[in-house]
Structure formats: C-alpha cells, structure tokens
C-alpha cells in the first residue's frame, strides 16, 4: 500500500504547487501596478524610486518617509528662502513679550476625509503631540508650549512658557507639528497609531502595499488648487543599479536625493540618462554641507586633540572628492557653512589639502613616527574609528579615500559602516571618534544646526571637549534669545570662528538635492530642506 501512496503524494504535492503558482500568477497579473510605469505618453503621473517603504505615515511619529509625509500633511507656516511664509495659517501675530502666538487659519481647508480644518483640529493635534512629549524633546518648542486654545472657529492661540526665537521655524518642520484629521485619532491619541492618514496636503494616500509601492492621488479639493500631477507612486527599489535600470525601462520615472542625503544612482548613471534625452537632471543650489564630525569629548582617543583634528582637515582632498566622486556636482566645502548661508559670511582661514602641514601638526603635537606606519604618542597609536552610513556609497568611497590618504601621514582610520539610525544614536551617545554627517539644510542653517551644537542629542559630544566649550554654549544661548540683528551677527561670527579653529566639524562638500525627472516635466523646484519636494508645482506640458 505504501508505494502507491507515496506516488500519489508526489503527484499531490506537485499539483498543489503548480496550482498555487498559477493562481498567484493570475492574481498578480490583474492586480499589479505594472501599468504605473511612465510610458511614452506624458500622462500626469510620476513614479519615484525610494530605497525604503513609506512606512508608518503617522505624522506625529518618526518612522515614516519624510517626502511622503510632506505631500500629505502640512504645517501652519512654511519656511522658504524669503523666511517664514503662511501655509495653513493665513497670518499670525506675536505678542509683545514673545510668548503668545495667535494664528489665523485659512478657512477653505478640509482634511482628505472631508473633516473641516479648524482651530479645534489644530488644538487636538498639537495637544496629541505634546502628550507624547518625551519623543519630541529634540524640538525645543515642544517643551515650551504651555497651552493651546481655540480662540474662534479659525483662530488658535499658542502660549509659550518663555519667548523662543525659532518657534515659527520649528512649527514649519515636516513633523511633528502637522495636522491629521481628528477622526483618525485612536482614543483621542496619535501616539499609539492612527486609523487613517488624512492630512490637508495636495496629495492623499490611496494605496499602500508594504515593501512594494504606495500610491498618492491628487487632492481635488486642495485649497491651493488641485495639483496637475494626478498620481504619484513611491516604488520601493532598494538597490542603486536596479533603480537605474528601472529608470531606463520606464518602470519608474523620477528619482531624487533621499532624506539621508544619499543618491540612489551614481553621477555617471545620471549623466547617461540625461544624454539619452528621456530624462533631465536638476540640481538644487547647495543645500547643506557634508562633513566629518569629530568627537572632541572623547578623552581616550587622539581625536580629542585639536592638532589631530586639524591634521585630518588638511589630509582631506576635497577637490578630488568633488571632482572624482561627485563628478563636480558637489563643490568642495572649506568651511562649515558656505557663505550664502545667513550670518555665515565670516572670514575664516582655509585649511588646504596639505599633507606636509598635517605631518608637521602631528609631529609638533608629539605624535612621532618611530617604527611601522602608524604614529604613536606615549605608547598609544594614532588610530581612530570613522563611522559611515552603510547605505550611502559616496560616504563609503570618501571614507576609503580619506583612510588611504591619512595613512600617508601616519594615521590609522578604521571604517565602520552602519545603518543611519545607528549612527544617529552614536552621535547622541558620544560613542564615536569620527562620523559622517551633514548640516540640516537651508531652512535650518545656521540657527538649528548651531543650536544643535549644544544639544545632547546632536553635537554636544562633538563640542563639549574643546577648550572654549563654555564660551561657545554661552554664546549659543545668547544668540537664541537675542533680538538685535547686529549682536546676533557678531555672536554667530564668534561661534563659527570657535568651531572652525577647533576643527570639530571637518567640511567635505556642499551637497544639493538632485532630481532625475522625465525630460518633459516642468516646474521642478526645491524647498528649503533636503527632506521634501514640492510635487504639487510640477506638471507635464
């Protein structure tokens, strides 16, 4: 009996498997998003490649994709090149003492689910954020809001515990002070998840297939007018070369620098695409500075010495990095902020690529090359760890290049590639010698970046080891409350001079946001941050 039984079993398994295969294939064929790729006809549709899933779109938490959240949710005000501009708030008043902000909301705004956007909704949203305050300590405003009151159907009052000069800037950020329909709250809260993702933005989330794609459709009732691009799809494509192929084949038709500053395809590939005539490559003006951050407070590491940091600065061949690694698309950065950044036009001495100068600095500081290839001082070697984002190929390439050059001056760098979240964690816990980082972008520079010098979550460990740390922190505190332009300018100059002299932020290049888009796409623009793009302004002729 057993023999026939087994034969039957084989047949059974095989047939099941075949059936499963057929049925699944069939389903995919009908329900897939295969038609979403941009064809020859310029339909008003964009499919952009994204390394990661859009993830949880809850705007009051942090796992979600910022570009995606940026088109679904909006803040009260917007940070632009020309300063703070109205968005969901038509206008606002600030009380004499600087502690009460009164926002007058637009009256023609509804959430995607039809709920009205009004003072009550604003109050509920901000209060929900504040009830989860421990997750938002990085944004100082969250600790300074005393009360939110609805002073009328479309008037909201925000009372602060003390005056706070960057309040509006922080209100303009992509998260957490943005608004989701109160109907999506679960039990009056957003901190444990939300039941839907209805914002007020130009696009609404229509479909989300985890780890595959997310579809955003134009919001017909958008207060700023329905966007011309009818549909935006975020397609998950983890690897660079797949993205390039997908672009070539039209499976995706849009690519941009992601929120971590990494491009999913390399410059050469972009140029190839552009020369094919199907695509255009658009770059923003320099948005931020990519840099290596040195941990001055790590006493047991050579990196705590100014001379060592300066030597590294001298050993970075920015020109080559800019020319070879970025094919000239990013320019060499000699200072932490490029001079077009507000308050940053300060005269600072450039440290050029000069290995002899670097060697001399080390020699003078007592690091001598006795035997072997690595300098030593009091028996300990001149060796440090450099952390880079494992998903960014350009960081890795730069790290390897720098490692190879500093070897010539008798310095040893150990390279460690980690996930960006892990690197952020190292930055806040001080568990690093050197790591790659970037300034936060035009909207945040210099004030937010400089405020972060003193912030424990950001650059506290970077700056706290320097001799003039106290002075630095005092000046940072002063500049945040100073209301006089001239003294603000002087303070910023002092601050920038101190960190420059201490060489704790070793600049590499000025980064920009790059967009690869179909040749016919018009209206490509950028925001003041590298985290979002204004899709609603784009259109096909």
């Amino acid at each position, binding site marked *: 009996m057993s023999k026939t039984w087994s034969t039957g079993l084989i047949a059974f398994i095989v047939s099941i498997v075949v059936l499963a295969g057929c049925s699944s294939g069939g389903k995919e064929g009908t329900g897939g998003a295969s038609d979403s790729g941009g064809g020859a006809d310029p339909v008003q549709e964009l499919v952009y490649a994204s390394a990661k899933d859009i993830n949880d779109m809850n705007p009051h938490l942090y796992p979600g994709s910022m570009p995606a959240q940026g088109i679904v949710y909006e803040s009260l005000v917007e940070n632009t090149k020309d300063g703070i501009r109205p968005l969901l708030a038509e206008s606002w008043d600030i009380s004499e003492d600087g502690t009460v902000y009164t926002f007058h909301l637009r009256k023609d705004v509804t959430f995607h689910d039809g709920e009205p956007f009004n003072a009550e909704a604003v109050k509920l949203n901000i209060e929900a954020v504040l009830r989860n305050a421990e997750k938002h300590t990085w944004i100082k405003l969250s600790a300074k809001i005393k009360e939110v009151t609805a002073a009328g159907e479309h008037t909201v009052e925000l009372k602060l515990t003390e005056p706070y000069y960057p309040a509006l800037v922080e209100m303009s950020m992509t998260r957490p002070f943005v608004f989701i329909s109160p109907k999506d709250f679960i039990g009056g809260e957003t901190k444990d998840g939300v039941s839907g993702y209805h914002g007020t933005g130009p696009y609404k989330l229509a479909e989300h297939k985890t780890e595959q794609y997310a579809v955003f459709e134009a919001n017909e009732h958008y207060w700023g007018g329905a966007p011309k691009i009818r549909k935006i799809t975020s397609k998950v494509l983890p690897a660079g070369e797949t993205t390039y192929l997908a672009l070539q084949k039209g499976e995706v038709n849009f690519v941009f620098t992601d929120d971590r500053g990494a491009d999913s395809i390399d410059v050469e590939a972009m140029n190839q695409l552009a020369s094919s005539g199907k695509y255009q490559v658009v770059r923003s003006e320099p948005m931020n500075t990519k840099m290596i951050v040195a941990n001055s407070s790590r006493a047991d590491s050579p990196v705590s010495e100014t001379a060592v940091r300066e030597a590294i600065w001298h050993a970075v061949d920015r020109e080559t990095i800019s020319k070879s690694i970025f094919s000239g698309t990013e320019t060499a950065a000699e200072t932490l902020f490029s001079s077009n950044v507000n308050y940053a036009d300060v005269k600072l001495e450039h440290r050029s690529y000069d290995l002899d100068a670097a060697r001399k600095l080390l020699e003078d500081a007592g690091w001598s090359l006795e035997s072997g290839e690595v300098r030593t001082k009091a028996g300990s070697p001149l060796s440090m760890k450099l952390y880079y984002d494992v998903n960014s190929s350009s960081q890795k390439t730069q*790290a390897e290049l720098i490692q190879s050059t500093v070897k010539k001056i008798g310095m040893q760098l150990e390279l460690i590639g980690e996930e960006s979240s892990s690197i952020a964690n190292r930055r806040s816990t001080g568990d690093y010698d050197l790591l790659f980082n970037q300034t936060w972008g035009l909207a945040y520079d210099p004030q937010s970046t400089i405020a972060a010098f003193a912030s424990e979550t950001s650059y506290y460990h970077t700056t706290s080891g320097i001799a003039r740390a106290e002075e630095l922190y005092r000046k940072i505190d002063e500049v945040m409350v100073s209301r006089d332009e001239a003294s603000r300018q002087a303070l910023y100059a002092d601050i920038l001079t101190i960190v420059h002299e201490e060489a704790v932020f070793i600049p590499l290049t000025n980064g920009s946001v790059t967009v690869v888009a179909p040749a016919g796409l018009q209206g490509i623009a950028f925001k003041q941050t590298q985290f979002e793009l204004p899709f609603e302004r784009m259109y096909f002729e």
Partner: protein
Amino acid sequence: MNIFRNVWKDKLAFLSMSVVAAIVIVGLFAPVFAPHDPNEANMELRFASASWEYWLGNDHLGRCILSRIIYGIRPSVLWVFVALAASAAIGAAVGFLAGYFRGRTDAVLMRICDVMLSFPGYVMSLAVVGILGAGLDNILIAFVLMKWAWFARVIRTSVMQYAEADYVRFSRAIGTGHIAIMAKHVVPVSLPDIAVASSSAFGSMILQISGFSFLGLGIQAPHAEWGMMLNEAREVMFSRPGLMLAPGLAIVIVVSAVNFLSDALQTALDPKLMKSGKKRQEQAAAASARLEGREVA
C-alpha cells in the same frame, strides 16, 4: 592514502587541486604576489581599464583590482576555511563521542544536534549577524555555531560504521583505553569521511559568506573581499559591467574547483562503497543528507 592517489589520477581533480593549492598559497603570501597595496587609493586611476601596471584595471578609488582579488583570498577563502575547520573540529569531537560511546551520550548529543539542525542555517546566521552586528568575524562565528551540528551528524554516522568493526571490538575486549582506541582505530579511518563532508560544505560556505558581504553585512571597508568587491561593482553594474567580472569569476573558479575536488574525493572513496547495490543506496541517502550542508547562498 589510496584515496589521494586516486584523486591524483583523475585529471580534472588534479587540476582542481592545483587551482585550490595555488589560490591558498597566493592568499597566504598575498604581500609577495600582489603588485600593489590593495588599499591604496589613487583617484586619478578611478575606473581605469587594464594596463601593464594594473592587469585587471582599477576600481572606484583607483585601487588595483588584481591586488584586491589577491588580498581578497584571505577573507573569502582562507578565513572561511578556518571557520570550516573550527566547525568540523567541534562536529568531529561531538560525532566521535556520540558514535563511539552510543547509548545515552549519543542520544543527548544527537538531540542537541537535532535542535541545531532544525534551525534553518542561513536564517540563523542572518539573525546572529543581525544581533551581534555586521562584520566578517560575526558571520564566521554564526557559521561555526550553525554548522558544527551538521558535521557531528555526518561524522557520527561514519564513526558508527567503524566503531563496530571487529578490530575495534577486539581492542575493547583486551582492555585498550577508549582514547587510545579512538586515536588509533576510529579517527584515522573516518578522516576521509570528514574530508569529504568538509569539502562538500566548503564551496557553499564560500558562496554564502560572499553573499553576506554582498548584502553589506560582511567585512568592513576598505578590506578587500570578493563579495564586497561585487557589491561595490554592483553600483556601477550597468555603466561598467566589467568590474563585476573579476571577483565573480574568482568566486566561480574557487567554488567549482572546491566542488570538483570534493566530488573527486567522494568518487575516490566510492570503490569501497559501490560494490554492492545496497551500499550504493545508503550512499544516495548519505548524499541527500550531505545536501543540507550544501545550501546555496
């Protein structure tokens, strides 16, 4: 030694053996063979094509690809071999104990092996790396942790055959110590089986470890490793497909040489096993058991 003489006779096996030996020697003495420093960047030579000075051209940092391939032998092949040897040694020890003493020892040890083997090896390596963090050392640890049980199984089976042989019984009867018996009668005869088992696992381990490096979980930059080189080449795969060639071929050559060699070892052992149809069937079953050791990356 007969086995090795047989392997010698087989031309293909001889070729494979020479290839493996050559690779091991080149890897061991990498500084002698490599024409350049594998980590020395020279951006002027970025993506340069082959030249008399750089036979295989240069990579994205202008480093010598040939030198990197040569230095890459160390993590890609030699360290894998060390991990293999470690897990084979642990497995052999357990296998000897279980196969020789039988009874309760065997039952307990085999239960443990069962548990270890019921974890899908690749999945667990992935999990261990995920928890301990990326890096070649952690991958190797994960492999040793996952592979020893499989060796223990294979070796136990082989030991059981020999432990029941008449001369072993005789030695036992005249009161020779366990360790002496094992050292004298059991270990030497099961060595060929260990060799076959290890060689059949070797190729797949090379593949798997390079796969981890490819996923970015393996060795850290700038050290050269073939999987890592492929990962680097992958970024410019369509603009410069040539970069994928050298490390890819290096892996294919080593792994096929190792596999051919393993196959030759197996056939060299065969005459003993193949005489009767019944034994052959057992062999087929053994082959299927071995298969689990040969998961693909």
